[in-house]
């Protein structure tokens, strides 16, 4: 049972608000993680990761141009935006590799909008890192566009950023010889 800190009434474990007084219990219902390591995944928002602006392109840009930009910016994934700047798709190195290498010339000149993955899974900058990690693991994604409340991409979170976060935060000083 969960005692309400405001009125002391007993509530079901996992209750979102106190049945007696309506006090918000969501924070109490969140599972307690054992270590600071685990807690940091829950407490730290996605924006604590290496913050690099998302590479945004328009759907009518050619695959060749987008590939060039990815390589130039050393990015693994571009976000395709509509004319309002909203994220409508993603095009990753993996997409490129799977589709481009066959009939190179032909596909390189096609608009990226034809080859992108539509309705990409996105995260908000305030979401906990654990959430991004979970999404990446579920979908097998290497990149998640981070969007603001209007769906405008503000940055890109990559699987490498998360591993770097773990490396820098917890394993510093254990660098390989």
């Amino acid at each position, binding site marked *: 049972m969960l005692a309400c800190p405001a009125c002391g009434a007993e509530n079901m474990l996992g209750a979102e608000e106190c049945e007696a007084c309506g006090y918000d219990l*969501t924070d109490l219902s*969140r*599972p307690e*993680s*054992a*270590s600071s*390591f*685990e807690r940091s*995944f*829950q407490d730290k928002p996605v924006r604590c990761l290496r913050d690099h602006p998302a590479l945004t392109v328009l759907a009518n840009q050619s695959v*060749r141009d987008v*590939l*060039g930009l*990815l*390589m130039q910016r050393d990015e*693994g*994934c571009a976000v395709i935006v509509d004319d309002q700047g909203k994220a409508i*798709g*993603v*095009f*990753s*190195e*993996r*997409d*490129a*590799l*799977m589709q*481009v*290498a066959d009939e*190179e010339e032909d596909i390189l000149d096609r608009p990226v909008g034809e080859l992108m*993955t539509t309705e*990409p899974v996105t995260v908000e900058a305030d979401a*906990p890192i*654990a*959430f991004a*990690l*979970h*999404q*990446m*693991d*579920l*979908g*097998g*994604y*290497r*990149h*998640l566009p981070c969007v603001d409340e209007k769906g405008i991409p503000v940055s890109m979170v990559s*699987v*490498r950023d*998360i*591993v*770097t976060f*773990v*490396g*820098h935060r*917890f*394993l510093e000083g*254990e*660098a*390989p010889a």
Partner: protein
Amino acid sequence: MEPLQILREEPISRLGELPLSTVSPEQTMRDAVAVMRDARRGCVLICRYKMPVGVVTERDVLKRLGASQSLDVPVSAVSTGEVWAVKRSDSLAHAISMMTSHQCRHLPVVGERGEAVGILSVRRIVRALVELFPTAIYNLPPVTLPIRKEREGA
């Protein structure tokens, strides 16, 4: 055991069998692309007599394509020849540090005699983190996102 302690003490072999895709130094970049696509992996090892002598990644391929260079060249001509390998007995923390310090997404894993036994990807590390910390990662506020059966896109 503390999660951090697990990372520091558990060996890479704890992750089980790791995938291994290889090409020989004489094979072409086009061959390497075919291997990557079949295996759906972003990295193949260049091996001579089972010993890793180089790595070809999808970025190497895309750099060539972006610069309109041919894929019909031997992989040995493109690969940098630097191989950051880890041993199966090294800790997971060591692997993470290697990936962080060398900024790579894949590490060749070698056995006792230096023979290639697998490729450890950053994705597999993420899987391991999720498996190690189920409390932190699975017990999140519910989201109404469809769970996709196939991996797609990024």
